[in-house]
């Protein structure tokens, strides 16, 4: 009898090309996603060495980090941004790579369009020069971020040098209480694991709570695995996964046959993980980050913690620095924190279900007069679907800006930025210092929490929201 294997074991074994003596194993990479910010130097490296892209048809590119989210017919104002996007276009042309360009109806955030187009599939190995590549693990793939040198390596060889990571099972029992979302779940998990608790591991999320999540919610969970230090997060494929993928552009022609193969992927009964952490979903309330890393998080019904009383000296000094940067004091109720900006978007929370959740809160209300709020759909498809449902009109009537698809103010490489001192409720994934603009202050929340905060001008507990 072969010994029981985890989902990670199975994908790893399937993709192991060789383990030469004295070298790290080479694993095969099924899909390589490319964007404008981390690829130019890799293509240049290929050119200098006279190398080609081994499998252009397994490589997909889109500009997302740097792109303007305003009118796409206008020229890009920032000449350096324009050069980076032009460089991606030229590289894709030279190396024969499929590009979803700015004027393509399917352009969008790389981690939104991968699953949406069916490029991401169960059992695959997927890499991209971006740490939020973990998102694709929601479909039962092993997906992780790599550096630009590794991007060049994958372009040239379709393989990667990798030591096998350890497996961490994060089991979530029960089902999420009303008003608590996948974003709250993953922020809570990060708060419990800490920002480095997952280092060296691939997280497999399991349990009744995870199984009950829809596909897009699963993506939100896997997306933020890196914020707990784990390079990848994954969820075993099931009927939710197969129903999501059926009929999408790049899925196998004989879909049902593929499903039969994918059904073999979930971890075998009795398979052992290197570590197991168990959480109860009943313990989780809507989450709000108060500090400058995603593990500095509390429930919306709590206060900013007393950082001076933290026992770990490193946590304490981080906490003190964070509060100073954030302009907050220990003991302030989260719901008393006033806001200047609200951002709904990013590879964490810019899919149609996220926008529906935000729209449901906003319906019948208007953005507080002190707040500048914007919604940035994750892709051209998400935008069209939202417009088809009339969500754009609802947001605009409520005082939100409705933008074109891109990463936007998640990392503020384009003109969408916070000014120094501005405080933002954001559905993105990082609250690092300066992440959304130098001196800007970011609080990470779910789309529903962000929408409610936009209406009230400060954080509110969305569990008590009067929906209209």
């Amino acid at each position, binding site marked *: 009898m072969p010994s029981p294997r985890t989902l990670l074991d199975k994908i790893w074994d399937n993709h192991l090309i060789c383990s030469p003596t*004295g070298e790290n194993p080479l694993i095969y990479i099924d899909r390589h996603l490319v964007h404008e910010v981390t690829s130019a130097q890799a293509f240049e490296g290929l050119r200098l060495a006279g*190398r080609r892209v081994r499998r252009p048809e397994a490589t997909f590119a889109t500009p997302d980090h740097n792109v303007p989210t305003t009118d796409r017919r206008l020229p890009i104002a920032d000449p350096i941004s324009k050069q980076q996007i032009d460089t991606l276009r030229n590289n894709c042309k030279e190396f024969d790579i499929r590009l979803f360009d700015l004027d393509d109806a399917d352009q969008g955030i790389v981690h939104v369009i991968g699953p949406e187009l069916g490029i991401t599939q169960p059992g695959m190995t997927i890499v991209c020069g971006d740490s939020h590549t973990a998102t694709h693990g929601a479909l039962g793939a092993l997906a992780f971020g790599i*550096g630009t040198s590794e991007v060049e390596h994958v372009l040239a*060889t379709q393989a990667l040098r990798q030591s096998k990571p350890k497996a961490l099972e994060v089991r979530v029992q029960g089902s999420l209480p009303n008003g608590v979302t996948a974003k709250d779940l993953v922020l809570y998990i990060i708060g419990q694991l800490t920002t480095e608790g997952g280092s060296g591991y691939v997280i497999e999320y399991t349990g009744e709570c995870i199984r009950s999540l829809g596909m897009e919610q699963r993506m939100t969970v896997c997306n933020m695995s890196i914020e707990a230090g784990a390079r990848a997060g994954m969820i075993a494929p099931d009927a939710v996964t197969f129903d999501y993928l059926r009929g999408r552009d790049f899925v196998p022609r004989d879909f049902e046959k593929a499903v039969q193969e994918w059904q073999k992927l979930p971890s075998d009964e009795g398979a052992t993980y290197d570590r197991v952490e168990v959480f109860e979903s009943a313990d989780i309330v809507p989450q709000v980050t108060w500090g400058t890393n995603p593990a500095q998080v509390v429930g919306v019904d709590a206060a900013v913690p007393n950082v001076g009383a933290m026992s770990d000296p490193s946590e304490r000094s981080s906490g003190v620095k964070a509060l100073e940067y954030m302009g907050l004091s220990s003991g302030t109720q989260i719901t008393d924190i006033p806001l200047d900006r609200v951002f709904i978007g990013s590879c964490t929370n810019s899919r149609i279900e996220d926008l529906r959740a935000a729209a449901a809160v906003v319906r019948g209300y208007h953005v507080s007069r002190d707040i500048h709020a914007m919604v940035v759909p994750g892709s051209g498809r998400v935008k069209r679907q939202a417009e088809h449902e009339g969500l754009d009109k609802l947001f605009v009537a409520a005082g939100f800006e409705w933008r074109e698809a891109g990463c936007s103010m998640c990392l503020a*490489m384009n003109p969408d930025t916070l000014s120094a001192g501005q405080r933002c409720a954001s559905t993105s994934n990082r609250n690092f*210092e300066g992440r959304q603009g130098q001196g800007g202050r970011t609080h990470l929340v779910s789309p529903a929490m962000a929408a409610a905060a936009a209406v009230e001008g400060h954080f509110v507990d969305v569990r008590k929201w009067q929906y209209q």
Partner: protein
Amino acid sequence: MQSFTKHSGVVAAMDRSNVDTDQIIPKQFLKRIERTGFGQFLFNDWRFLSDGTPDPSFELNRPEAEGATILLARRNFGCGSSREHAPWALADYGFRCVIAPTFADIFYSNCFSNSILPIRLLEEDVEQLFELAKAATASNTGKYELNIDLNECTLFDDDSFQRSFEVEPFRRRCLLEGLDNISLSLKHTDEISAWEKAHGLPSVVSG
């Protein structure tokens, strides 16, 4: 790739944990399409005041950190984004080694691609190094220097501090010999092709 065998240099002590790659190289500098020239932007938002002059209180701007090539920091150094611009900026500024109790996974890998040696030490050893650096700053010598021997995997100062450290053997060999990882992997092209053949590739469905 530049090889790394032995190195001696001045230590810059950065008493912070969770230093993320957004701090190491803020995103406003990620639009360049070259690998070089990022050193001038290293830790930009911490290093410079709003008028563009160096902040004298920032660790790298202090006299004892002048000419530093070894960076000492706390837990989870390099967390966040996968941007290789972070090690590019560190290398371009002159750093050859970063010492911390723990590193974020992607940053750790990216260092090896750029001839930077990341050294993991026990938390108490890192604490001792911070104290030694602090003591040197207070004394006449001002600067604290460390020596690294990657052949022996040892780290030592000119006095009594000495520790050994661990590096994955393959990564160590790549650094010692300055190996080009892609060339090395291309030697396995036959195995890559065999894998593809066994898995019925290439056969990507086009949309």
